[in-house]
């Protein structure tokens, strides 16, 4: 599905600016995606991709512009109402697993945000590794287990829009492959997904559209079917 055929975007961000203290990090981000779509935010470290997700969640000091979810303005909402009212599940950079909580406690921590969340049993089926470590504390999990827990945690709540930040970072190829299967599965179940991803090879086959972010701005948008013809441009953007 291309942008033109989308009648009503689920998430529409216009001219989004964000600040940490005095430092101006986002300089007018524009992006949108329809229900059931998957987009990626590509770019170098520090370009503002994670900050875009954090700004959606209200985790920056100041925001300006517009963030609409199903047509409703979210910019002015207090942070703790964003996830329930937008049915958003956020999986932060570094996974955000709580060290003083065990696996089950981490899993049960976020309150439900809507109907249709996966049951704990379903999740342990999706991530069998977690079933064996239910009572283990967050600190004692491997990186892969932490990442699966971080994803499972937001699938339990009934979220429909998933914001996933660098989920493949630092993980072994076999786990990255599992995650790819999970994301494809989620997409087929109708979830709407924003991926911040460094690993383009992981993201390319999954995404409907890629947004390239530089210096807090979207500098290029590449549709899925243009990826092959745009490889030179992409390599240029992503080369360090």
């Amino acid at each position, binding site marked *: 599905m291309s942008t033109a055929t989308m009648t009503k975007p689920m998430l529409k961000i216009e001219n989004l600016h964000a600040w940490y203290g005095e430092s101006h990090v986002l300089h007018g981000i524009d992006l949108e995606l329809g229900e059931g779509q998957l987009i990626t935010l590509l770019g170098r470290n520090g370009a503002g991709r994670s900050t875009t997700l954090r700004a959606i*969640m*209200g*985790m920056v000091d100041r925001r300006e512009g517009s963030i609409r979810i199903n047509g409703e303005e979210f910019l002015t909402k207090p*942070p*703790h*109402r*964003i*996830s*329930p009212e937008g049915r958003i599940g*956020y999986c*932060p950079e570094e996974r*955000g697993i*709580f*060290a*003083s*909580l065990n696996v089950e*406690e981490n899993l*049960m*921590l*976020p*309150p439900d*945000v809507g109907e249709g969340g996966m049951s704990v049993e379903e999740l342990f089926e999706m991530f069998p590794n977690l079933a064996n470590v239910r009572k283990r504390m967050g600190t004692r999990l491997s990186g892969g287990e932490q990442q699966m827990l971080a994803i499972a945690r937001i699938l339990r*709540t009934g979220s429909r829009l998933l914001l996933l930040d660098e989920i493949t970072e630092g993980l072994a190829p076999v786990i990255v492959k599992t995650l790819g299967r999970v994301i494809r599965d989620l997409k087929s179940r109708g979830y709407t997904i924003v991926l911040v991803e460094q690993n383009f090879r992981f993201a390319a086959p999954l995404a409907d559209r890629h947004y390239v972010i530089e210096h807090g701005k979207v500098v290029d948008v590449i549709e899925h079917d243009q990826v092959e013809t745009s490889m030179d441009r992409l390599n240029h953007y992503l080369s360090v």
Partner: protein
Amino acid sequence: MDPMIRLILAQGMLGLNNGVFYAMLSLGLAVIFGLLNVVNFAHGALYMLGAFLALILYSYLGTWIGMADLHIGFWPTLILAPILVACFGMLIERFLLRRLYKLDPIYSLLLTFGVTLVLQGVFINFFNASGTPYPGMPESLKGVTNLGFMMFPKYRLFVIVFSIIVCLAVWFMIERTRIGARLRAGTENPELVKAFGINVPLMVMLTFGFGTGLAGLAGVLAAPIYSVSPLMGANLIIVIFAVVVIGGMGSIMGAVVTGFALGLVEGVTKVFYAPAANTVIFLLMVIVLLVRPSGLFGRQG
């Protein structure tokens, strides 16, 4: 029984009785510090407030409202006073402390110190600065009971048992329930907990109320033992801070165990060299600070 052992056991029981208050107060401080990162200097004054509420509800309220026969007794007070202190604490959090979270922690410490001075000043102004006995001890807890090695006041035994139950219940709630899991998560990363849709500002207010409510509860329990005076908290808070430093700031189990243990140590020290009883806690604090700066139960690093 050997008289020496008998003496140690007896002083140990009395020490444990003081330890009860150390444990309950440092527990409240630990809960508050964990989530709010605020060192609540007003904790002693809120303990005093709890004791005064017990006194007021029994001795003064009836006269004030023209019902001279009204004496609200110990049992209802044990529930009522902590709730009132908790509400007072939540007002402090909502209208004063909340404005200071983005600033250096020294400001919240100064604010709570100021609250202490105001509370002490108010009660010195309206009540006897030297202390008033609480006359409302329930009949069922008057008298003594034979522990085998000593005759021990029934009320003090009740206070020890009751406080141990309260401390265990609080520990269980924080470490083993879903509400506790939210609290622990909020202590680690409040921003992310907020992003999951949990109302962290409300949780912070309730937690502060809960911690101060525990101080109020300790105050009510103290009223029949010590005389109720505006400075009763000021004398205690110094020891409490030593307990918190020794136990490790923010550790729930650390606060409880250290509180009881130091009461015990203090009591037993009286047997051997009574003048040292008041200083032994601070001596231990110095040693702990030298050997394990983050406290016996605190996370190292």
